[in-house]
C-alpha cells in the first residue's frame, strides 16, 4: 500500500505520456450527459475504484508531497494531468477531499494527521465532507452552535450540521465546533477530524423544494473525537476555516472538477441554449415578438454571465481584482437565475403549471427554485461587494467583540 512516485523528476512531457497511457488503459471516458456528481452506491463505488486506479498508476496527488503519498511535482505537472484527464471520468465525489480538505490539512495539520489521512484519500479509500454550516447558523458561520467539550483524552461533540454534500457517503468530515463560548465568536472555534462511522452521527438526506436531494443534514450526538484530531490549534479554528474557504473559492474558480476544465474558461463564443426557442415553437409562440424579446433577454443574460465570469476570473488571477470579486459572480448568478426563472415561466405559460405525466416541465420548477441562496446568499455577496470592493462602511454588528455566550443567537434551526 504505497504510492508509486515517479523516481527522479520526469519532464512534463514524460509525465504527460505516462498519464495519457494510464488513463487510456485504465480509466473510463466521460459519457455525454452523465451527471457531474453521482451520490449513490454505484457512483461512489465507481469513483473509489477510479481513484484507486490513479493511485496504482502513480498519477494520484500530483502536487502532494511525497511524504504523504503524493508525487511532489510542481503545478505545471498538475496542468498536464488536467489536460490529459479532460475527457475521462474523474472521481468527482472526492472533490471536497482534494479541493478543500487536503490543502487545508497540508497548511494547518500536524504531521501525524497528514500521514494518517492524506494517503488514504489518494488511494481512493476515504471520501471526506465538510461540517461547517448549521441549521441555526445560516450565513453567520462563526456564530455556529455545535459545541466540543473536553473530556479527558477526548472531545465530545454535540450539535447539528447542514448543507453537507456527500454526507451520506463520506468516511471522514472536517468539522468546525465551538470550544470556548466565553470569548468573541471567532476566537472560540476549533477544527476537528471526525469519523463518520461514529455512532453519534446521524445523516439525513435533505429534500429540497425542487425535489433534489443533493445535500445532507447531520445530527451530532455525543460524538467522540480523540484529543489529537484537531487541525491547527484549539480555539484557532477560524483561521483554519478561512484557509478552507479560500481553498474552496479557488477550486470553484477553476471549475471544481478534478480533471480538465468543464469548458468554463475556454472561449467557445456565444452559444444559444435552444430550449426556450424550442418551447416557444411547440406552443406556437415563436413568432410573437414579445416571446422573442424574452428569449433574447435570456440569451443575453447567459452570455453576460459567461463573459463576466471569464473577465473577473482572469482579473482575480492577474491581481486586477481582489479575491472578494468572486462575490460579483455569485451575486450575478443569483440575479440572473431569478430572471431566467421568470422568463421560463412566461414563455411556458400554462405549461409550467401542469403537464402530462412523465413530461416533467422544468419551467415552473425553475421559477420555484431560482434563488441565490446555496453557497452563500446573494445578500452576503452584496455585503462583500459593498464593503470590500466599494469600500462602504461595514454593517454595525454587536457580535464581533462580545463573548459568544452574551450575544443573541437562534435556538431553533432555520436559515442558511
Amino acid at each position: 500500500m504505497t504510492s508509486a512516485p515517479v523516481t527522479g523528476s520526469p519532464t512534463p512531457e514524460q509525465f504527460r505520456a505516462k498519464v495519457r497511457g494510464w488513463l487510456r488503459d485504465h480509466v473510463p471516458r466521460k459519457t455525454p450527459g452523465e451527471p457531474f456528481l453521482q451520490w449513490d452506491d454505484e457512483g461512489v463505488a465507481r469513483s473509489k475504484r477510479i481513484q484507486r486506479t490513479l493511485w496504482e498508476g502513480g498519477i494520484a496527488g500530483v502536487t502532494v508531497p511525497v511524504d504523504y503519498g503524493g508525487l511532489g511535482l510542481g503545478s505545471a505537472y498538475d496542468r498536464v494531468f488536467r489536460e490529459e484527464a479532460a475527457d475521462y471520468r474523474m472521481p468527482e465525489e472526492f472533490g471536497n477531499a482534494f479541493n478543500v480538505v487536503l490543502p487545508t490539512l497540508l497548511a494547518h495539520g500536524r504531521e501525524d494527521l497528514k500521514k494518517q489521512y492524506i494517503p488514504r484519500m489518494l488511494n481512493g479509500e476515504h471520501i471526506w465532507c465538510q461540517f461547517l454550516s448549521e441549521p441555526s447558523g445560516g450565513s453567520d458561520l462563526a456564530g455556529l452552535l455545535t459545541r466540543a467539550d473536553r473530556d479527558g483524552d477526548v472531545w465530545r461533540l454535540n450539535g447539528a450540521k447542514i448543507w453537507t454534500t456527500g454526507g451520506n457517503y463520506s468516511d471522514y468530515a472536517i468539522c468546525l465546533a465551538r470550544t470556548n463560548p466565553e470569548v468573541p465568536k471567532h476566537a472560540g472555534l476549533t477544527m476537528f477530524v471526525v469519523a463518520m462511522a461514529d455512532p453519534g452521527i446521524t445523516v439525513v438526506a435533505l429534500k429540497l423544494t425542487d425535489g433534489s436531494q443533493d445535500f445532507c443534514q447531520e445530527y451530532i450526538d455525543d460524538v467522540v473525537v480523540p484529543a489529537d484530531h484537531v487541525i491547527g490549534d484549539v480555539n484557532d479554528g477560524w483561521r483554519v476555516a478561512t484557509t478552507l474557504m479560500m481553498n474552496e473559492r479557488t477550486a470553484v474558480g477553476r471549475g471544481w472538477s478534478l480533471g480538465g476544465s468543464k469548458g468554463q474558461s475556454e472561449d467557445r463564443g456565444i452559444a444559444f441554449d435552444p430550449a426556450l426557442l424550442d418551447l416557444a415553437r411547440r406552443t406556437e409562440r415563436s413568432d410573437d415578438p414579445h416571446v422573442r424579446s424574452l428569449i433574447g433577454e435570456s440569451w443575453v443574460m447567459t452570455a453576460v454571465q459567461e463573459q463576466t465570469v471569464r473577465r473577473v476570473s482572469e482579473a482575480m488571477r492577474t491581481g486586477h481584482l481582489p479575491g472578494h470579486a468572486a462575490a460579483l459572480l455569485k451575486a450575478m448568478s443569483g440575479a440572473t437565475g431569478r430572471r431566467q426563472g421568470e422568463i421560463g415561466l412566461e414563455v411556458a405559460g400554462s405549461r409550467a403549471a401542469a403537464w402530462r405525466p412523465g413530461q416533467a416541465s422544468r419551467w415552473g420548477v425553475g421559477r420555484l427554485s431560482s434563488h441565490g441562496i446555496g453557497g452563500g446568499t446573494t445578500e452576503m455577496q452584496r455585503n462583500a461587494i459593498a464593503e470590500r470592493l466599494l469600500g462602504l462602511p461595514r454593517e454595525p454588528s454587536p457580535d464581533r467583540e462580545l463573548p459568544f455566550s452574551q450575544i443573541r443567537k437562534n435556538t431553533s434551526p432555520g436559515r442558511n
Partner: protein
Amino acid sequence: MQLGLSDTQQMFLDTTTKFLDGHSGPGRARELMADPEGFDRSDWDQGGQLGWYAMLVPEKYGGGSISESGLGDAALVAEAMGAHVHTGPFLATNVTAFALAEYGRDDQKERFLPSLAAGSSIGTWAYAETDSDWSAGSVALRATPTDVGYVLDGTKSYVQDAATADLFLVTARSPGGLVEVIVPAGAPGLCVQPLESLDLARRLAEVSFTGTPVGRADVVCEGADAKAAVERQLQVALVLQCAETNGATGAGLDMTVGYAKERVAFGRPIGSYQALKHRLADHRMWLEGSWATTAYAAGSIWDRRPDAAAAARVAKAHVGRWSTHILHDCIQIHGGIGMTWEYDLHLYFRRAIANEVLYGAPDDHMRHLVDIAEEAAR
C-alpha cells in the same frame, strides 16, 4: 384582504377561517397530495353547509350570500382558502354555478343549481385548451350540430378536479360560433387524463371528448350570448383566483416577516437589516395593490360596471406578477430553510406560480387591455 366588511360578512369570514384553521392548512395539504381525489369530501360537504357554493346562485335556486355582492363574499372565502393552501374545486364549481345562474335556461337552473349550491354535486369549468391564451378566440374544441344538439370532439386542459366532477361546463366552437354546454361525468367519449401539477395541492386534468353527444336540453348558450357568457365567467374566475393568490401571498409574507423578527444573524434579527426591511416593505406595498385591485374588480364585475373587463385584467396582471415576485423573495429571505421540502413556504409559492399562468398570464391580460381600449374607441 377586504376592508370595510359588514358585521355579517365579518362573522361569515370568521366562521370560514375557523373551519379552515381546523380542517385545512399546509399540513393537511401535504396529506392530501397523496390522496387520489386530492381533497376531503367531508370538508367539501361542510363547505356546502357554510354556503361556499351558493354565493353566486340566486336564492330561488337554493343560493344566496350574506351581502349584496356575492362575488365579494366568494372572494373572501377564496382568500382564506389561499392562506390555507386549501384543496378542492371551490373556484371551478362556483364559476360553473355562476355561468348557469347568469346564462342558463330556467329548466337548467332548476336541474343543476340547487345541488351545485348545496355542494352535493361538483361542477367544473372545461374552458381552456393546451397552449391557449385563455381568450375565447383560442377555443378550438369542435361542436358539430346534429338533429338533437351537438357532438363534441377535442380536448380541454387545465380542468380542475375533473376526476371528481359530476358535470362539466364545456366551451366549444360550432359553425355558428361559440357554444357552452353541460356534459355529465361518464358521458360517452369523455375521458379524463390527470396532469401532473406544479401546485401539488391541486388536481388538474386533460379532458378529451370523442363523439360525445350533447342534447339540446344541455346547451347553455350559443353565439354572441356564449361569447359574453364566457367573458363573464373568465372575469369571475380571475377575481376568485386573484383572491386565492392574495391569501397565499399574504400568508407567505406574514411567515416571512415573523421569521425576520425572530431569526438572528450576526447577533441581530435579520429583520433589522435595512436591505431586507426595504424589500419586505415593498412586498407589503404591492400586496396592498393586490388587495385593492381584487376588491375593485369584484365590485366592478358583480355590479356589471363598464370597466369590469378591464378591472379583472388589471387585478390579474398585477396580482399574477407580484405574488410570485413576493413569494420568491420570501424564500430568498428565509435562506436555506426556505428551500427545503419540509418548510411550508413553497406550497404557497407553488400555488402562486400556477395561478400566475392559469387563466392567462399577466402579459396576456396586459395586452388585452389594449384590445379593450381599441374596441372602445371603435
